[in-house]
C-alpha cells in the first residue's frame, strides 16, 4: 500500500516537471516584461499572483522559476550522484589505503557546515547558474559517496560478488553490472532527499543574493526582493515561499515513501 503522502509527493513533482517543461506555453505573460502601471499590485484579474516591484507578472515568474529550481536540482544531484557513486564504489571495493584516504577527505568535508561552505565559495564568485551548480556539487558528492561505499562494503562479502571475482570478471563489470544494480534502492531514496536539500540551498543562496544572476526568476531571489517591500506588497514574499515549500515537501514525501519501500527496516 502506498501512503497518501507518497502519492502527493509524486504528484507535486510530476506537476513541477510539467510546469518547468511547458513554461512558455502556460505562462500568461512574459516573465521579464515591465508593467510599470501595475507596480506592487496584489493578485487581480489576468495577473493571478499580482505584480512585483517592476510590475512583472508574479505568476509567470514563478512558472519560469520552476525551471531554475528543477534545472539546478537535477544538475547538482545528477553530478553528485554519478561522481559520488563512482568514488564510493572504488573506495568500498578496493578498501585499504584508498579507503582510508577517502574516509579522511570526506570527514573533513563533513566537518564543515554545508551551507556555510556554499556561502563562502559563492561570496568570491560572480553569481551565475553554472557557478551555483559547481558550488553545490563540490560538496554534494560526499553524501552519496559515503552511502555507496557503505552499501559496497555490505555487498562485498556476499556470495555473488565472491563468485564473480572467482571467475575473474573485470572491476568495471563488477561495479556497474553487479554492485550498482543491487544498491539502486538506497541511491534513489538519497536522490529524492538530495533534490529537496539542493532546491532549499539554492533558494537560500539566491535569497542572500549569492545565487543566480540578478533578474533570473529564482524563487529564493524573488523572496529576497519581496522582503524589501514586505509591508507594501506581502504577496511578493509569501507566494514564492509557498512554492519552495511545496516542492521541497514533495521530494521529502516521496523520499520518505521510497525509503519505506526500499528499506523497510529504516525509520
Amino acid at each position: 500500500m502506498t501512503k497518501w503522502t507518497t502519492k502527493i509527493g509524486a504528484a507535486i513533482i510530476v506537476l513541477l516537471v510539467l510546469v518547468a517543461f511547458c513554461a512558455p506555453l502556460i505562462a500568461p505573460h512574459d516573465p521579464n516584461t515591465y508593467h510599470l502601471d501595475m507596480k506592487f499590485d496584489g493578485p487581480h484579474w489576468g495577473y493571478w499572483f499580482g505584480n512585483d516591484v517592476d510590475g512583472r507578472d508574479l505568476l509567470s515568474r514563478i512558472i519560469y522559476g520552476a525551471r531554475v529550481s528543477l534545472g539546478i536540482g537535477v544538475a547538482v544531484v545528477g553530478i553528485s550522484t554519478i561522481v559520488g557513486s563512482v568514488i564510493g564504489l572504488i573506495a568500498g571495493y578496493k578498501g585499504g589505503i584508498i579507503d582510508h584516504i577517502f574516509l579522511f577527505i570526506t570527514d573533513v568535508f563533513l566537518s564543515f557546515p554545508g551551507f556555510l561552505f556554499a556561502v563562502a565559495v559563492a561570496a568570491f564568485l560572480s553569481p551565475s547558474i553554472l557557478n551555483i551548480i559547481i558550488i553545490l556539487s563540490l560538496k554534494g558528492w560526499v553524501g552519496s559517496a559515503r552511502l555507496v561505499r557503505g552499501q559496497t562494503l555490505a555487498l562485498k562479502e556476499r556470495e555473488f560478488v565472491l563468485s564473480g571475482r572467482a571467475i575473474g570478471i573485470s572491476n568495471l563489470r563488477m561495479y556497474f553490472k553487479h554492485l550498482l544494480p543491487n544498491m539502486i534502492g538506497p541511491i534513489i531514496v538519497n536522490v529524492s532527499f538530495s533534490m529537496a536539500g539542493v532546491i532549499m540551498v539554492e533558494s537560500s543562496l539566491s535569497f542572500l543574493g549569492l545565487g543566480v544572476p540578478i533578474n533570473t526568476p529564482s524563487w529564493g531571489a524573488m523572496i529576497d526582493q519581496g522582503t524589501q517591500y514586505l509591508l507594501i506588497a506581502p504577496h511578493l514574499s509569501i507566494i514564492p515561499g509557498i512554492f519552495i515549500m511545496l516542492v521541497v515537501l514533495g521530494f521529502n514525501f516521496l523520499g520518505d515513501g521510497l525509503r519505506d519501500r526500499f528499506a523497510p527496516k529504516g525509520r
Partner: protein
Amino acid sequence: MIIPILLSVATIVFFLIHVIPGDPVDLIVGEQALTTDKARIASELNLDKPVIVQYGIFLKGLVTGDWGRSLFDRRPVLTQLKERFSATALLAFTAMFIAVLVAIPMGVLAAVKRNSFWDSASMFIALVGISVPNFWLGPVLILLFSVYIGILPIAGGGSLSSIILPSITLGAALAAMLSRMTRASMIEEIKSEYITTARAKGISERKIIFKHAFKNALNPIITIVGLQVGALLAGTVITEKIFSWPGIGSLLMDSIGRRDYPVVEGCILLISFSYVIINMSVDLLYRFFDPRVKL
C-alpha cells in the same frame, strides 16, 4: 584529533578563498582602479606573494591571534568577531532551547500513541516543518506577529521579546527534525525486551515511558541536538539578515557586500571552528553518557 581537523578546515577556507579564479583586488577596488591602488591593496593582503607564502602568513596569524584588519574600517578582525559572537550564540542557543521544548514532547507523544491521529498529525507537521524555508518563515512571522497582531518587535537585538521571532525562525527546522528523531528513538526503546519485562512486572505505563524508555531514548537525541547546534550557527546567516540581528551572520553578509575579504574570511573561520569544536565535544559527551560507545 581536534587539531588536525581544525587545521584542515582552516586550510580549506584559505584555499577556497585564494584559489578561486578571478582577481580579488579587482573585486575590491574595481577593474578600472589605478595600478598603484591595486598594488597597495595587493601588498596589504599579501596577494603579491606566492600562494604558499600567503598560506604560511595565514597560519601564523591564525595561531598568534592576528586575523588581519578590516578593509572597510581598519579595525582588527578578531575584535569585530568578539563583539558579534555573543549575539549569534544567544540566538542559536535560544533557538535550540525552543526546539527541544517543542520537539521532545511531540516526539514522545507520537511514539506512545503510535499510529494514532496524534502520531500522524505531529509527523505531518514535522515533515512540513523540515520543508519550510526559514527565509520565508521569518517574513511570515513578522507579518503575522509584528504587523497584523502587533505584539512582537520586528528587528533589533536588546529586549527579551526581540529574540522570540528570530529564534522560532531559526529553530523550526531543528524542532521538526528532532521530533522525528525522538519518535523513532522512543519506538525503538518501547519495542525492547526490558520494557516487556517491566510491563509483565506490572509497573505503571507512565513510569515505563518516562523512567525507563525515555531515559534510554535520550542518548541519540542529545547527540542530534549537539550536532545541530553547529548547523544552527551556520543557519544564523539567513535569520540574522531577516531580523537585522547584530551577530556574526549579518557581519558576514555585510562584509561580503563590501568586499571586505579579511572579515569574510574571519567570519567563516569562526563559524567553522565553532562547528567543529561543538561536534567534537558532543562526541566526548556521548561517550561519557554511554560507556558502551568506543570509537
